[in-house]
């Protein structure tokens, strides 16, 4: 299929944008990265995603595709000559999609809850819930990976991307809270997987360094009283 013109509207610090960047890297696909400024939305974004007005938006031959996991699947469907992102078996695909939705619907809201938690008790309660969910994902990893390095098997796949994109921010939460969410005691496989994921060629230049994310977090906190951007 003709590759055509590929643009990605996003921000480097967004794990949702990172998902798309990783997917494009897996396919060795060149693209133009159009950085959205923190706290404002460009004309192009508002035009390309009028429904949600959110990044990421992939613009392929002037056609916009929205929602990070929809975009990743689109990339897998279009660039068929590169390594596959989703498993080939329909059942395995259903499993990968199920857990990716779990990451978005169960895990991520708990991370937000922790960020908003005030007081030690509330924080501890949020952390406990997050660790419970991570233990569920640990079990999912054992089942999906079948003894291999990634959720997707020998190489990173859909679920690795869906969950792994959050590792940058997870590390920020751990560092700023001076605690561990992923631990050798409760989630030993995920600890090792996280390291492998972050070192992967398709990932290593995408996930921002912890220090950079902490800087961005502090800017976002300062802007928290301003009208919401995303």
């Amino acid at each position, binding site marked *: 299929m003709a590759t055509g013109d590929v643009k990605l509207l996003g921000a480097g610090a967004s794990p949702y944008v990172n998902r798309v960047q990783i997917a494009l890297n897996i396919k060795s696909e060149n693209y133009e990265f159009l950085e959205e400024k923190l706290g404002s939305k460009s004309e192009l974004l508002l035009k390309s995603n009028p*429904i949600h007005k959110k990044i990421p938006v992939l613009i392929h031959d002037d056609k916009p595709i929205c*929602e990070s996991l929809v975009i990743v699947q689109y990339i897998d469907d279009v660039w068929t000559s590169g390594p596959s992102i989703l498993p080939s078996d329909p059942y395995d695909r*259903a499993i990968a999609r*199920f857990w990716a939705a779990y990451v978005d619907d169960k895990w991520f809201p708990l991370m937000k809850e922790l960020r908003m938690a005030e007081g030690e008790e509330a924080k501890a309660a949020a952390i406990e819930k997050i660790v419970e969910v991570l233990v569920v994902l640990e079990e999912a990893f054992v089942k999906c990976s079948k003894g291999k390095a990634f959720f997707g098997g020998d190489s990173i796949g859909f679920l690795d991307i869906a969950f792994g994109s959050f590792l940058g921010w997870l590390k920020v939460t751990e560092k700023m809270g001076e605690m561990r969410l992923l631990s050798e005691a409760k989630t030993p496989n995920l600890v090792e997987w996280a390291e492998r994921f972050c070192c992967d060629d398709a990932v290593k230049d995408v996930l921002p360094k912890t220090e950079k994310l902490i800087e961005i977090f502090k800017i976002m906190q300062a802007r928290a009283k301003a009208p919401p951007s995303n």
Partner: protein
Amino acid sequence: MASQEVKLLSLWVSPFGHRVEWALKLKGVEYEYIEEDIFNKSHLLLELNPVHKKVPVLIHHGKVILESLLILEYLDEKWKEFPLLPQDPYEKAIVRFWANFGEAKLLRPGWPALRSQGDEKEKALKLWIEDLEKIEGELKGKKFFGGETIGYLDLAMGWISYMLPVWEEVGCSTILDPKKFPSITAWTEKFLSHPVIKENLPPRDKMVVWFEKRIKEPFSAQ
């Protein structure tokens, strides 16, 4: 035997379950239907879906597939009869986008909005209607979401045709004004007259009784 290969665990009134049944019937797949009492969850359900403890659950050759929209994708990949999703990657992305939108912005908040009261209800319905207008826009000029024949997105949005009117009745609110939503109104008529859909709808009076009971109970997510 063919019918033992595929089993569906569901609740008679669940719109999530209905869309799976429609897909199975459109594709001519034989299956065994197992009714679940969600107020008294069976060991089977808790074993098959320990994460969410929800229906529908599809079991195919002993393998468990969860989440109705994911089940539709699975069925479409396993059974080529009556394709549900478009072949074109861009068209596929568009229907997935709208299915997610419908799920998050309309189906899930729909009943909670219609069963609420006073200011809370007014506020919830205002936002909800704004989102329904986006679906109206997406449907404009089309016979079905899927084009000439029903497809994945029609099944995903199907609840609007038969369940939303029940919620309107029980919640005492009119939302689907034909003047405001001419495309959805026209689509509803065509969708409900499809032979497979028509033959596979829960009885309306039974649905009304169900939701009237629910409105009297404190709301809890199922």
